């Protein structure tokens, strides 16, 4: 009998085929095992996409909150201006308590600062809005089920978080609203446009180098009609201040439903309640001049 391996070329081929097949499958199995163990410790599949969608949700929630707060702030601002003769809280006129009303009333005279309803409105609006922005608390959370990953990223949050059932609840986004700054506040045609400075939001909390810059712009209804009430009142008082007895008629000409009255205890003071929106209540002392308009005032 001839030796087993007589046909050398055929033998070499067939044996090589077997060995290569074995090598190929073994290598494949090895790399799969190696990949499995490294992937288990790394990023979850889809995590980056998840981070982006969650960030989008966070910015939408924030914008909704800022819009709602801006609307509330606008209503409060107009109310404050009406109670302070068209001035913001910080720089209002002197006030007189009683007997005209249970609340203290602003005395609309030259002792008041320069008269500029639009500037007063803008500064008061920004102050009111800031109060709401400081109260914002993000509802964002970062969910991590891999314990090792949890420990790695926890230091990034500087311990400003809570871990409940392997879920990190963080207020990391809260700082973004507290530091939202108004870049511009414009009254244009039918709108009051508030533009905020751009703000950076981290996309993936596990890395420090992925950010999304978002510039918020909010549109409110224009306060022009309301602010014009203040200048209308100023104009009406300007025309009747020489003869206070004619003021009631003059003021009712501009504000038909207005309440105008004198009190014998304070003969020089005229009480005015326009009974409009906003309801402007103030006192005017005839022995004093009206406040002067600011040089920059738009509404005159």
């Amino acid at each position: 009998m001839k030796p087993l391996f007589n046909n050398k070329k055929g033998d070499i081929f067939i044996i090589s085929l077997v060995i290569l097949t074995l090598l190929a499958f073994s290598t494949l199995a090895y790399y799969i095992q190696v990949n499995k163990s490294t992937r288990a410790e790394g990023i979850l599949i889809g995590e980056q996409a998840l981070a982006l969608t969650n960030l989008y949700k966070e910015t939408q929630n924030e914008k909704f909150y800022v819009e709602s707060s801006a609307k509330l702030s606008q209503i409060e601002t107009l109310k404050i201006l009406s109670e302070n003769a068209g001035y913001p809280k910080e720089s209002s006129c002197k006030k007189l308590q009683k007997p005209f009303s249970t609340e203290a009333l602003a005395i609309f005279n030259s002792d008041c600062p320069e008269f500029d309803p639009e500037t007063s409105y803008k500064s008061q609006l920004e102050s009111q809005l800031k109060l709401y922005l400081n109260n914002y608390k993000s509802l964002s959370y970062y969910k991590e089920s891999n314990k090792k990953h949890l420990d790695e990223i926890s230091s990034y949050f500087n311990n400003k978080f809570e871990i409940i059932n392997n879920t990190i609840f963080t207020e990391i986004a809260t700082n973004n609203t507290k530091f939202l700054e108004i870049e511009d506040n414009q009254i244009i045609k039918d709108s009051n446009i508030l533009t905020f400075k751009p703000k950076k939001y981290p996309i993936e909390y596990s890395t420090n180098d992925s950010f999304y810059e978002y510039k918020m712009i909010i549109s409110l209804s224009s306060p022009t009609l309301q602010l014009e009430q203040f200048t209308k009142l100023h104009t009406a008082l300007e025309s009747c201040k020489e003869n206070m007895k004619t003021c009631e008629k003059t003021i009712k000409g501009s504000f038909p439903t207005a309440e105008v009255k004198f009190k014998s205890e304070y003969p020089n003071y005229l009480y005015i309640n326009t009974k409009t929106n906003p309801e402007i209540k103030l006192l005017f002392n005839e022995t004093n001049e009206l406040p002067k308009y600011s040089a920059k005032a738009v509404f005159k």
Partner: protein
Amino acid sequence: MFNIVKNTNKKGVMDFMLNYLLAIAALFLIISFFMIYFFVLGGADSSTVIIKSEEMQSSAKLINLLKTDMTQAGIDKKDILANNYLELIQELYLKKDEESTKEKLSSLLGPILIKMGQTENKNIGWNLKVYEKTTDQIDKINSLSLSARGSFIDENVIETFAGSEQIKFFRETTLIPIKDAEPIIVELYLSCNGCLNKDVWRYI
């Protein structure tokens, strides 16, 4: 035994078949082994978790609901207390301790929750909760709540089912400002007793 082939090199054939059969058998064994390893034993299966679609969070539905003009919701004009549902919740929250508040919330917000559910099944429905978030903990204090169960309104949301905490499907939350107070959380989710994820997708 090897007379099956005539006029051939019998010894060559024997060598060839021996080698050939051995090689084929070896290949067969190798391939079978790895097929069993990969497909039967799951050697190629990854234990890595792929993010589920439920992890994707959104507040779009809730924000749209809050912005909805109440006049478009089919409510009588004389009953409307606010321009939209956001203002309604802000107003009612300030009066949450009054007896009539729950009734107003139920009559004004209930119909739209029922419409969202589109089902007669009383085990399925959208729930709305309004509450404060305390500063350090995630504990919730229910202040206002409403549950649409099929075509009925319940003033209490469903929290448990068969003794365990109920799964909240399509849960959305947002924060809304309140005048002179801390902001409040509004939460909207679908409750479906004994349902699995695949049962609820048509209610999205």
